[in-house]
């Protein structure tokens, strides 16, 4: 009786571990592939582990073939700049939607959401003309400017702000607290976990964009990591070992960013719970 009870208690944990294994398996499988040789990939039956983890040829190849460090820097600048601006714009817009009423309030909210419903490819040529007309080709700003609008982030922040009591805002305003002070010292600290998760999502999305940065830059020194992967891909994309190595090389910084921010998230989660 007692044993089965304990088993029952452990069941959710077991399920979690199993699910985690399933979710992580593709990433793990990919990482293993980065250590394989072309022959290992083409032999049958397929293997999970590489013959030797000391085979770092694929990684060496990635750095030999592309100026990856320069690409890291570019991607870092682009992802940070566009995510930061995007978060600010989203916070302000969400604040407006939650704490102010203005004519067309609801309409504008839906209008902002519609920016998520348009495939970027349809907008690409017109945007190229705009950005090129502004003289922003070959600049970081030109690479970022089209992604300043983050409706998804704005939407989630609106959901978050909605849960904060209206009275708080009213009281703060009556006390002579300005809008900016209210946002930065009252509203945002309670929303920290969500804020960080959203920033992370935006950062990663920007880190992984490909076509737009390729279109608006003409110089090798302005290229981003995703272009680096393409430079290592054959037309039929069957050189898996190299592509996987390149993938992990480009993923590594995002994982580091994630792990750093995750600490902040879990810290924020506990403090957030205290406040509410």
């Amino acid at each position, binding site marked *: 009786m007692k044993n089965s009870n304990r088993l029952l208690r452990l069941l959710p944990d077991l399920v979690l571990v199993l699910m985690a294994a399933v979710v992580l398996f593709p990433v793990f499988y990919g990482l293993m592939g980065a250590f394989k040789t072309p022959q290992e990939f083409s032999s049958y039956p397929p293997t999970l582990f590489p013959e030797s983890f000391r085979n770092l040829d694929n990684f060496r190849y990635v750095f030999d*073939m592309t100026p990856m460090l320069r690409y890291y820097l570019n991607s870092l600048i682009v992802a940070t700049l566009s995510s930061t601006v995007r978060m600010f714009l989203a916070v302000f817009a969400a604040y407006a939607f939650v704490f102010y009423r203005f004519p067309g309030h609801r309409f504008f909210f839906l209008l902002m959401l519609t920016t998520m419903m348009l495939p970027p490819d349809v907008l690409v040529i017109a945007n190229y003309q705009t950005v090129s007309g502004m003289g922003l080709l070959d600049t970081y700003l030109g690479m970022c400017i089209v992604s300043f609008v983050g409706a998804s982030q704005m939407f989630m922040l609106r959901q978050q702000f909605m849960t904060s009591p209206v009275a708080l805002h009213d009281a703060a305003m009556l006390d002579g607290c300005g809008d900016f002070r209210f946002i930065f010292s009252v509203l945002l600290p309670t929303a920290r976990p969500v804020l960080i998760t959203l920033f992370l999502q935006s950062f990663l999305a920007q880190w992984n964009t490909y076509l737009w940065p390729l279109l608006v830059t*003409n110089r090798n020194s302005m290229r981003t990591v995703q272009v680096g992967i393409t430079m290592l891909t054959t037309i039929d994309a069957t050189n898996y070992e190299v592509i996987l190595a390149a993938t992990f090389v480009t993923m590594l910084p995002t994982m580091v960013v994630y792990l750093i921010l995750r600490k902040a998230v879990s810290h924020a989660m506990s403090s957030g719970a205290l406040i509410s």
Partner: protein
Amino acid sequence: MKRVLLMLAILLLVCSVGVAEPVKLTLWHSMTQEAGQLMDAFVKEFNETLGREQGIEVEAVFQGKYSEAVTKLNSVLSSGQTDNLPDVMQLDATGKVSFASAEMAYPVDRALQEHPESDLSDLLAPALANWKMGGVQLGLPFATSTTVLYYNKSAFDALGLTVPGTLEGIASLAGSGLEKDGDGSRTVFACLPNTPTLANWLGQLGSNLVNRTNGTEGTASALECVDNGALLEFLKTWKALYESGVLENGEGSLDAFVAGKQLMMISSSSNVTSLLEKIGDSFELGVTFYPRVSEKAAEGATVNGSCLVIFDQGEARRNAAWTFVTWMTGPDVQATFARGTGYLPSNVKASDSSAWTELVSQYPQYEVGLRQVLQTPDTMHSVTVGPSIDFYYGIQNWVSDMLEQDLTPEEAAQGMAEDLGGMLEQYVRANPS
């Protein structure tokens, strides 16, 4: 300190007067991996040799895959800011239309008028002809390839079989034992016709796929292989091949071929290097001509690949660009490029070089593509259609439907004529020539 600065300034002044500013050129290319590195190496070599002599400096910039580079080209053209165009660009077939209609295009014909001393007779004739459109020579062939049949020679030898040269012959491989792999089974042949492969089979039957000589003399507006029965003949053969059980309806995969789970595959001749590397010692790689539809069909397959084109950025730059392009298609570069990548040498003199002959004597697989190109009748042209991706998948979908949804070849031919023809009509309406 001040004196040092002053001296430095004088030194700089002297230098800049002494050495004339070189003409700076930009090259947009789509070569990845080793080919990409070779591209950089060629540019470096050019800058240090002929470029230094003539005061030309080239910068090579990777612009993504061919299709992405063309998207970029179209964006620049429609923005009207033509100073964002490169001097030299590597284009594949999908970029022909965009280049041909660009006002800044500097086609080879004009370059030849201005440089009568240039001689193109060493270039591989079928490859050169592939970059002609509406009678205008757009660019010079750089990376040249054709489509060939790869097969697992060891598997055929083990059963004492030779690889068939026709689709009918492939169908007769049913029941030969090739499909047995120990206790399991393996695929003998997997293929799903698309624009270039279908055009090859139709070309062998003496027909173009689309009108205006497969779109080389103007914008194609309709299928040409329907009324003359060539399409129907091919579809019938293809259906019979499928019904024999030898053919797997799918694009097949290089992985399955390399793993020995698929015995024949149609692919670009430029894959020979990576195939040899991947297969290693596991079996002997066989390469042979593109299969013919039937015994009465002609032999051959068209040229694919990419060319180098020039945009006119003023006299000094276009002259420098012409110097660079002719150097890139010269025998030395082409021999090195072919050896390093598996592409065919686009220059006849390159195929006489020791680099090439040594390679071929060690790996005879390299030579098949070149022989095939030279034997292919010059009436066969590769296809240029506006809606290229749509057209490509359209063909595949109709052939798949015929095999898996039990359409008769007649119905499939009719459906293709309407569907694919419709795409071409749409395009012609938007882009009248």
